[in-house]
């Protein structure tokens, strides 16, 4: 069992779990139960994570009430709970997936957040926050330039005064750090 706890073994196990996840997704997508795909996949993801962790626990030192005990208890409960939820889903006894809304807009929002995360480390917190807030407000169909400028710079001024100056939180300065 310890073979799957690390290195290549763990990689193989991860790929197997990934395949199981994709397999379940496809199986639901192309069957009469396609309206339950999302319902089925949420527990499957959690179960896959639990099983991934299970493999790792075999690497822990074995002792009475050791480090593997409680994680395995949760993993066992998760797997059994997922199977029960899955059973209900297959029988169509849970709610159907909600109608897809503007998924594209959400994805765009997530992309913006990720870009903001990296921008903070490159451009520094202050500059990237102005840009992020302005773009997000524009995306939420705010078309008042004055309001956009006011809110984004206002927020940055607030965070500078309160967080940086008053509370000594070392907000990232990005590449400006060398010049300040």
């Amino acid at each position, binding site marked *: 069992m310890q073979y799957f706890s690390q290195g290549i073994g763990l990689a193989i196990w991860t790929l197997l779990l990934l395949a199981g996840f994709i397999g379940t997704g496809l199986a639901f997508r192309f069957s009469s139960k396609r309206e339950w795909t999302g319902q089925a996949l949420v527990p499957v993801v959690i179960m896959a994570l639990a099983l991934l962790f299970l493999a790792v626990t075999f690497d*822990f*030192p074995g*002792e009475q009430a050791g480090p593997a005990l409680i994680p395995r208890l949760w993993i066992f409960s998760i797997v059994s709970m997922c199977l029960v939820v899955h059973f209900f889903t297959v029988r169509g006894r849970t709610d159907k997936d909600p109608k897809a809304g503007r998924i594209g807009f959400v994805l765009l929002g997530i992309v913006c957040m990720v870009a903001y995360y990296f921008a903070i480390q490159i451009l520094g917190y202050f500059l990237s926050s102005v840009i992020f807030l302005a773009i997000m407000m524009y995306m939420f169909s705010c078309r008042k330039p004055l309001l956009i400028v006011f809110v984004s710079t206002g927020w940055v001024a607030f965070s500078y005064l309160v967080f940086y100056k008053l509370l*000594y939180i*070392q907000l990232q300065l990005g590449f400006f750090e060398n010049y300040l």
Partner: protein
Amino acid sequence: MKRNSITLLIAAFMLIATFTAAVATEFPSKPIKLIVYTKPGGAIDVFARKFTAIAARYTDATFVVVNKSGAGGIVAIKYILSQKPDGYKFAAVTRSNIGKIVSTGGNIDTNAINWMGLMVVDPEAIITNRNQSVNTWEQIVADAKAKGGKQLWVGPAAGGNDHIMAMKTWKAAGIQARWIPYSGGGKSMAALLGGHGVVYVGNPQDVIGRPDLKVAAIASEKRLGGQFADVPTFSELGVKGLDNEIMWRGFMAKKGIPAEAEAFYIDLLKKVNSDPDWKAYVEKGGANPVMKDAEEFSAIIEADKTEFGKVLKELGVIK
């Protein structure tokens, strides 16, 4: 015209650059960051702030204490190592950081660190609850033998300073007991106060202000002063090999800081070390003020690494 202004700009920049370079020979020319590996209010944070308060008597430099908490000090040490060694950042460290460096796989190169000075030594202490029937060293030994390995010792996580001290004590005294780890000293002391364990392993400092607790033995060569004057050392109790079990506190920087910065720190550490108020502060906390330079400090680090490595391997924490 445009080209002219650019040339002017470059010239201006160069002027500023030479100017700052000229000023830079005088260290320090800007505020110095003292990195602390806990959040404000942690024990080492208090230590660092005391240090800066007393250091202010000997230098005009401004110190800013910066808290970089996480992973028992790994985050703070990695931060120091990731920065330019310009001398404007140094960090407060304790022995438990070495344990973390070893237990997390040793991807921190201790040779890349300038172990500038070790300033405080806290002897390890065997602490008991005054209100329990077992509270002196002799009683502990007798109780342990009577319980046959079922005596409970409480303290922080397995594989740390205090656990290692406990294991050494058991070996030296020829007794057996069980280590019950808690997340942190506070909770372990609560367990001792509640009578859930017989012994807590910590430092004399832990007893101050808690009249129910008492130090049954200390692992130092000589007795401490003040309120600890009547606490016996291990050798007085006839236990051999536990004369110098310590938890140290000191300061580090990245290797390669400018020579004038290094000289500045060494000078400052020495001055603070001989300050009467600093001595009083350290001794009041049941510790000893010392001054070990980079060479001695590095040797201590190597010895600690070997010890932690050996114990953590035995416990199965590292491979």
